[in-house]
């Protein structure tokens, strides 16, 4: 553990960008974990007579069109975003891991079938599929948006895992393990999986950024749940008051940019460090 921390510390000291990304991640994750302690107000509390006030000491990022504090909504909104992104990542891993590993390891008919399904999903832009799914299924709750995002976005990860397992399967140690009579499951879990973990970590980091963006896009378009505070919801509200109350949409946008940037910087650094070829 200490050795790991020492490595992280050296890397962070070498790159200012990575240092910034890590700092920003720590701040925002704390924000997301304890919104009730950090946010000045409740996200849906309306301050009568304060609708659309510009940034001030009382409301650092101003209030929205009906008088809710923008900063509090940003802080609570990230809780939602992070929860959705982590949940969707979990769903994605639960599908992509078995599909990718089975396809890559067994090849043949299993591979053909699984990869044709993957290709069919890949032929549609993710965001279009998301819009269609959210419309047709009338997705409202957090759980269903998590499921929909995970169910739609797993294809790329599955393809990468497949390609990696194909490579590892042919390595001497994997062939040796097979020839010694170990079962397929044993070889997959003991030899294939540990060798592709770094790829999975890197792609997951980038996918976190994508999930945050997708959630924001869906809410921004107006297909999100209007009762749950989220970054996309703020942008959706702010879009209608762009000329008169720009702070409603500008501040959450800056937060989205910095968070997505941090995830991308982290992904880049991890990929350099773990020498993952993308």
């Amino acid at each position, binding site marked *: 553990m200490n050795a790991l921390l020492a490595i992280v510390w050296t890397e962070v000291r070498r790159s200012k960008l990575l240092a910034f990304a890590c700092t920003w991640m720590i701040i925002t994750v704390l924000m997301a974990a304890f919104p009730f302690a950090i946010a000045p107000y409740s996200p849906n509390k309306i301050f009568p007579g304060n609708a659309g006030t510009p940034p001030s000491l009382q409301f650092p990022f101003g209030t929205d069109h009906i008088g809710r504090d923008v900063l509090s909504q940003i802080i609570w909104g990230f809780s939602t975003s992070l929860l959705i992104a982590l949940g969707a990542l979990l769903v994605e891993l639960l599908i992509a891991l078995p599909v990718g590993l089975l396809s890559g390891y067994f090849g043949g008919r299993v591979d053909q079938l699984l990869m044709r399904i993957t290709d069919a999903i890949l032929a549609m832009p*993710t965001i*279009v599929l998301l819009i269609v799914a959210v419309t047709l299924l009338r997705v409202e709750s957090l759980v269903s948006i998590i499921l929909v995002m995970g169910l739609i976005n797993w294809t790329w990860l599955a393809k990468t895992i497949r390609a990696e397992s194909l490579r590892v399967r042919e390595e001497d140690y994997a062939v040796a393990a097979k020839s010694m009579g170990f079962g397929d499951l044993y070889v997959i879990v003991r030899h294939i999986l540990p060798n592709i973990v770094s790829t999975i970590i890197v792609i997951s980091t980038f996918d976190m950024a994508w999930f945050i963006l997708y959630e924001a896009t869906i809410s921004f378009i107006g297909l999100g749940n209007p009762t749950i505070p989220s970054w996309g919801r703020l942008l959706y509200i702010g*879009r209608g008051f762009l000329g008169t109350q720009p702070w409603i949409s500008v501040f959450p946008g800056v937060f989205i940019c910095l968070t997505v940037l941090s995830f991308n910087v982290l992904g880049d650094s991890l990929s350099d460090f773990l020498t993952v070829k993308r």
Partner: protein
Amino acid sequence: MLATSRGSREVREVLMHRFGLDQPLYVQYFLWLYNTFTGNLGISVNGLPVVDVIAPRIWYTIELMLVSQILSATLAVALGALAGYKHDSTLDRALSFLALIGYSIPNFWLGLVLILVFAVALGWFPVGGFSMGIELAKISGLSSVLLHLEYLALPTAVLVIEFTPYYFRLLRSSMIEVARSDYIVTARSKGLTERTIIYKHALRNALIPLVTAVGTSLGLIFGGSYVVEVVFAWPGLGSLLVIAALSRDYWVVMGVSLITATMVIASSITIDIAYAYLNPKIRFGGAGL
């Protein structure tokens, strides 16, 4: 929606029958599939055939996408070749940093900011809403082109800022690999100018991974332009999809999805052909792929 709570049962039944909603789901699906092959995509909730709703919008989507992708690719090739060739120079670091930022800005938010600055505050460009309230048929020639450009400027800028970094990063990393190869060393020892080496020898080989990448990220390209269309009320398929989704106009949603998938597959085939042109190994090899 057409028959709200006030609508009588008869109206409801007539509407259910008209949209085929009284049939079981699988019958609805196969009926849709059958009709699709005859060029009938169903009826939109506003009474028009879906084909007539979609058809006039396809061109706008293609126009926005072509203009922005050609601009981004050109810009990325010029800058990426330079940055990759002069790997680790100040120029490379600066461009890579800019690319990382451009890469991380959500396109719809960037659209809002550009509207705020260039349309609302400065008034240089229209806020959006091309062709709404403009009778395009009446204007022609140069003024029509100028009008297109005026409305294209901001959405194109957003897409260029979104996609240039993406292509730039790909081209830069493949250029770094190419710059190390033997034939570049040979070219330099022959005394060729740096410019000839970069743009004649290295670039052509570095372009191949870029073309592959464009092929695999078509979903990203279409998705990106669709969202930007919504922000600028650009009269293409993306804004239609969202309007239809918000008004639960299922047949239009299905129609737009079908056309999108068709366009993605058609572009993917075109790119495969371009790939063969760039890489003679595929053209003559026969094997491979």
